[in-house]
């Protein structure tokens, strides 16, 4: 999903999922990230909501993030396969003030991994967001638990965030984008290598043929 390089300038388009149980703050997170605004009450998301965020990553890279904010209610999960496909990364959100939503987040991660993967078969990068951190504090025990969960469940990292107070919103997204870009570079390299191998094989087979 990356644009052509022109004069060394590259533009990427990545699809990023925002998933997690209902009412954990997915839409609020996206609105804060994209519009830098916070709304006390938002309507429930039905199906999926799209937003775009354009990031000038560095002087020669622009990243367009297509954010897919997916409805949290269980009932709709049958459709997730359709919504998940071809995504490059995910923000998995839970609500720190509601412990059961962490279990929910792990379920979402599990489902994510069963539906999409990178070309090389590895899971797509996912960041765990402990949202609404303005309402509570992460104690040290929690922190080490989250650390452990990240390793066990294959998150690339976790952040405590607050869409309301604008805490770690950009940071978490940036962290994810960094990994997506790395994956993207790796897969481009792999593809180039594969292409070279193919070419070699082709020329080999050609030569034996003649």
């Amino acid at each position, binding site marked *: 999903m990356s644009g052509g390089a022109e004069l060394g300038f590259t533009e990427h388009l990545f699809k990023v999922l925002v998933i997690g149980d*209902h009412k954990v703050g997915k839409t609020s997170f996206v609105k804060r990230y994209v519009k830098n605004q916070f709304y006390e*009450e938002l309507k429930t998301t*039905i*199906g999926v909501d*799209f937003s*775009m965020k354009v990031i000038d990553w560095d002087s020669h890279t622009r990243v*367009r993030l297509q954010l897919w904010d997916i409805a949290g209610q269980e*009932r709709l999960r*049958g*459709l997730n396969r359709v919504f998940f496909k071809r995504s490059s990364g995910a923000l998995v959100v839970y609500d720190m003030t509601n412990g059961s939503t962490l279990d929910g987040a792990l379920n979402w991660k599990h489902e994510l991994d069963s539906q999409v993967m990178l070309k090389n078969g590895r899971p797509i990068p996912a960041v765990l967001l402990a949202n609404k951190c303005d309402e509570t504090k992460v104690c040290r025990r929690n922190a080490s638990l989250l650390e452990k969960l990240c390793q066990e469940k294959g998150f690339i990292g976790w952040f405590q965030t607050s869409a309301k107070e604008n805490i770690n919103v950009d940071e978490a997204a940036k962290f994810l984008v960094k990994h997506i870009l790395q994956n993207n570079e790796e897969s481009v390299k792999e593809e180039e290598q594969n292409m070279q191998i193919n070419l070699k094989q082709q020329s080999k087979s050609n030569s034996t043929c003649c």
Partner: protein
Amino acid sequence: VYGAQHPPLDPRRHRLSLNSKSKKPSTFHEFARSTNDAWDIDDEEDDGMFSLKQPSSSPVQSRSMPQTPCVKFIKAPEETEVVKSCSDAQLNVNAGMLVKQQSLPVRPVIPLVARISDQNASGAPPMTVREKTRLDKFKQLLASPNTDLEELRKHSWSGIPREVRPVTWRLLSGYLPANRERRDLVLQRKREEYFGFIEQYYHSRTDENHRDTYRQIHIDIPRTNPLIPLFQQPLVQEVFERILFIWAIRHPASGYVQGINDLVTPFFVVFLSEFVEEDVENFEMASLPQDTQRNIEADSFWCMSKLLDGIQDNYTFAQPGIQIKVKALEELVSRIDEDVHVHFQKCEVEYLQFAFRWMNNLLMRELPLRCTIRLWDTYQAESEGFSHFHLYVCAAFLIKWRKEILSMLDFQSLLMLLQNLPTIHWGNEEVGLLLAEAYRLKYMFADAPSHYKR
């Protein structure tokens, strides 16, 4: 004008004028700025709303105001004044308008959301001779010992006059019997039955097996109509909670699914409007007598139940009804507007990505509430309105934006457009045209072989 003719005039004739009237955002960024639903109003730069709020002393300026103050005319049947010319009406409207405007609190929200109960956003006079005749016809039908439901449907198709809407909805939904003598008895029995359910089941909301259902409903209620003061009243929120909880536990195959909460709103607003002279949106529910409050609640429950009976497979596991309808929409659009269909394919837009919500919430998220109420007049007049005719309305709705759709050249801008269609100024007239087009599509394309392609 209450909307489309039935059967409709040639809707194609109207289409041009409709298109040219709609304000179409010209850039992707204009859409990006306003990524909210039709009746959210957080983007203050939208649509020149500000000009409507400013107190104006010139009658010419107030002309563009939707005309809530006429409610009083329409409310009191005995005093109903038949207005013979536009200017008569305008004078009266303007007089009311000035007073109204001065009392408006200085809040950037009012004008468009405020009109939830208002039927004529386009500023037509309160009641023309023709409308008076229509109203009389409804009254006559409703007053007869046995209301001819077929006849009532025929007249309702093109919009139900506001003052007879509550009773007409009760009749059309099958809640109230056609036999006039039996009505009071049935109402009394059904209302008692509902409050029997409450007594029997509502305490179980804290039980292990119902706790999650209740919690989800409880969380969703404040998010159902955020920003409309009426729905922020604890009393009103409790009404919604009870209605939804009782419905959910009595329908375990679906239970509570997000979106169903929206479907209570039109019934509640219409039944409440029977007792409200001013704007429903700012009404204090607590000022009504207990009995009245209870009746509104019970009637909303039963009518919503009747509606959901017809579309329950929208909300059972994996929502098969919706998946089927989205597929059907895709198939239909591929036949009626190949350009749009192919354009979607080219940009890799899938119908499920935008039409899921159209089906799940019956377009309520795409239209202002006043339009949904008008739409439901017709849905209740059509046989299988909510389950079948809605599909054609969705197709007509999509095609209505064909020019805008075809001007968007990539996935993102298309999705942003489709998620934020600019209907915020819509009123009866637009819905009338939409329905007329849907009727035409149904007539031409229902089960029709593909040689009907245009």
